[in-house]
């Protein structure tokens, strides 16, 4: 029996990065959804019920770390793994402060995303 694909949501206001990640992560085993800003993120979480969410910190509008706090407080998303993405050198500190499950330092690559998913969803 084919295992269900791991559902991923990537939230970033960089349209090019979203395209590249979706294109290169869309393979058997992954179902990738995109969200171009933080405002629609919660609705996408409800609709697609991802297992892993990658959040860019510096987005216009709501920031990734604020979104992370919202997700972590919401009972509906208690099993969702949240990772922050950023080029900020303080990313570990920011991730700890908002109780993210992990973080990725930018520049990210599809391989880094796959490695993190494997680590978080064994």
């Amino acid at each position: 029996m084919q295992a269900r694909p791991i559902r991923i949501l990537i939230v970033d206001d960089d349209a090019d990065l979203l395209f590249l990640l979706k294109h290169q992560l869309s393979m058997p085993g992954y179902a990738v959804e995109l969200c171009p800003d933080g405002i629609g993120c919660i609705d996408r979480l409800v609709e697609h019920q991802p297992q892993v969410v990658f959040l860019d910190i510096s987005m216009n509008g709501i920031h990734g770390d604020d979104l992370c706090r919202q997700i972590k407080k919401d009972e509906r998303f208690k099993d969702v793994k949240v990772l922050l993405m950023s080029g900020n050198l303080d990313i570990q500190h920011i991730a700890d402060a908002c109780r993210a499950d992990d973080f990725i330092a930018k520049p990210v690559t599809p391989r880094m995303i796959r490695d993190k998913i494997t680590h978080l969803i064994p």
Partner: protein
Amino acid sequence: MEIPIMSLDITNEMDIMLAHRRGMQFARYVGIGLSEQTRFATAVSEICRNGLEYAVEAAIYFSVTKTLERCFLKAIIKDKGRGIADLPHILQRRPDEHRGRGVGLVFARKLVDVFQVTSSPRGTSVLLQMDVPIKNAVINRLVVQGWVKHLQSEPAINAYEELKIRNTQLVELSDQLKINSGVVEEQLKEIQLLNVKLSKSNDRMKEFTYAISHDLKTPLSNLKIASEYLQSNPQGEDLSSYKAILSRSVTRLDKTIHSLIEILDIQNPDKHIVRELDFAVVFEEIREEFELQIVESRAVIVADFSLAPKVHYIEGYLQSILRNLLSNSLKYKDAGRPLKIHVSTEKAAGGVCLSFTDTGSGMDLERIKERLFVPFTRFSGNSDGKGIGLYLIKGMVESNGGMVIVESNTGVGTTFKFTLVPYT
């Protein structure tokens, strides 16, 4: 090497005065400063008074001790009294807790560099020692003999004159201390102001560093992913999106680097030409740069600089401020309303207040106020802007002690108020 200078028996009040005077003189001869001379001489008179009032056969011995590296002026006051009972306890008490001999001891200890006291039922010996600046210490037995010979030719001490001299010295010292205290206070204030400035500067640098790193890493990340994929030579795919991403990433990097150059250029002190600027003239020059956009947007611009027509400022800065504000107003106009721009100046505390109001789309300041002046931040889908304009002009204004205030409402418009502090 110990060089005795002179000794004095302390048998009456005049001897205390003389010991004080000699203390001042010897301290002056060895090159100690006025405040240290007074401290030493005061300590001498305190201990001599103790010897006179509470003991017998008190005497003071002045000497100079020299080593290769150090030099000291010493006064040893000895007596043959009954000693000081409970000496350790006396030395530990506060000055206000003392009576009698204890007061003089504790007070004198604070005045000198080295203070030692030994006491027994056979008498007490107190050492008072001051460091002598070694470069001043051209002191040998011959020199000391010269001091003593000089002092022997002095007229006899006159109590009234001696008190008057001491009083004058204390007043001079007190005045000097007041001046020094004022100077120190001024310097402390200056240090505090510099600290605040430095702290703000550090925060700006952190903010800037983060922003630039974000704006460089994002397109670089995309370039890396796209180019690696293309290098893997995928077959049978439409790669036009990848090529477009490569091109856009390079353009973004190019823009960011140009912005960096612009920022560095603005900070170049060689470009900081300060002169008296006429607001109307400078604004008209900037307005001409945007003539086409003004006509296309049908913007109505009213400029009134009558209340404060001029300012002594860096020309490049004022041009930048007006250019950025006008550019933003034209860029972020509300499509459903006519654009009106009002620019004016008025005198303000410390300088000139420049106000720039428009009836553009306005901003939700509650949501974005913390990032409004962060470099490389954009608040709309309009990607023409580099996101550094407000960051730059805030830095320009604040670098000379000025301030920026923003008021804005979505659907109403925006007002910027800059307090420009003139350059001297």
